[in-house]
């Protein structure tokens, strides 16, 4: 038990050291409409426990098959919760709150201004490579959300991780 607590302590400290405090989203800036399907997609594709489903990451995502927010939830059990979607929104917007607001205010134009989009496309150094090739459902989902007209179908397709 002590070991667990120690580990938790270390993780928390490492999180502080590596990521800085989480910034609050700017009022009204992030499109909440359709966010749940975007959050599902990001969680399924990027939020595994060995990627962004790790505490201590600047972009930390919750998902039903990854890291859980509530102490009595476990990876692989139940659905992603509303609280988890809300936390994901804070994490995503908190990366670059002002820039986010600007991109959204400009109807989602030039989304590559956002580190999130550049990393997803692999345009910028990213340990996870280039998970969303240009024009694939994950990319379409993200762009449509930034343009405040979330393409739910693209998000649903993008969330599928099929066994070969």
């Amino acid at each position, binding site marked *: 038990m002590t070991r667990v607590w120690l*580990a938790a302590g270390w993780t928390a400290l490492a999180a502080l050291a590596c990521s800085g405090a989480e910034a609050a989203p700017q009022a009204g800036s992030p499109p909440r409409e359709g966010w749940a399907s975007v959050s599902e997609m990001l969680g399924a594709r990027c939020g595994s426990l060995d990627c962004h489903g790790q505490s201590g990451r600047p972009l930390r995502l919750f998902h039903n098959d990854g890291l859980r927010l509530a102490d009595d939830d476990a990876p692989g059990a139940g659905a992603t919760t509303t609280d988890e979607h809300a936390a994901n929104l804070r994490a995503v917007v908190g990366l670059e709150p002002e820039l986010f607001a600007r991109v959204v205010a400009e109807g989602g134009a030039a989304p590559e201004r956002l580190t999130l989009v550049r990393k997803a496309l692999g345009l910028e150094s990213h340990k*996870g490579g280039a998970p969303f090739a240009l024009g694939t459902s994950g990319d379409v989902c993200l762009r449509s959300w930034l343009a405040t007209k979330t393409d739910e179908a693209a998000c649903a397709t993008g969330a599928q*991780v099929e066994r070969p």
Partner: protein
Amino acid sequence: MTVSSVWPGLAVLLAVALAFGCDDPLRERTIVALGPEAAGVPPGPLHRAGQPCVVCHDGRSSAREFSVAGTVFVTADAPDPAPGVVVELVDADKRTFRAATNCAGNFFVEPADFAPRYPLFVALEAGRYRIEMDTPVQRDGSCASCHDDRTSRSSAGRVYLFGTPRPMDASGCP
């Protein structure tokens, strides 16, 4: 502010930077947290069942490098090893590799035999019985990184073969 009052602050910062810089102190901490070898089990194929093998077996120490390794238990709620289980690994290039668990429930794969391109899909087989992990592994070759012995916010619990206990053929195991 005097030098002597600044210094302790700097020292703490430096210590924190050294300890938590994003380089790889995590590896060191994780290894320390895993503790010493269990009494009576020498370092080798049967040791450290249930632990994240690749943390140590990562090619950066004397421990032989593994690409994928872990432990399979009979059920999720007890540390009883499941020997003779086939661990099926299918990578992004649709290459399939099969490893088998030993008497400790351990299996390990060397990069020379199979260095998967992620994502990596995993399934377990024992005779005609099969259980699949639905989501793929994205990066971490240690099953136990996500399958701690306790289910939690960040752990899916032990890698297990059966939902409810069934007899296992452990002939040949001590």
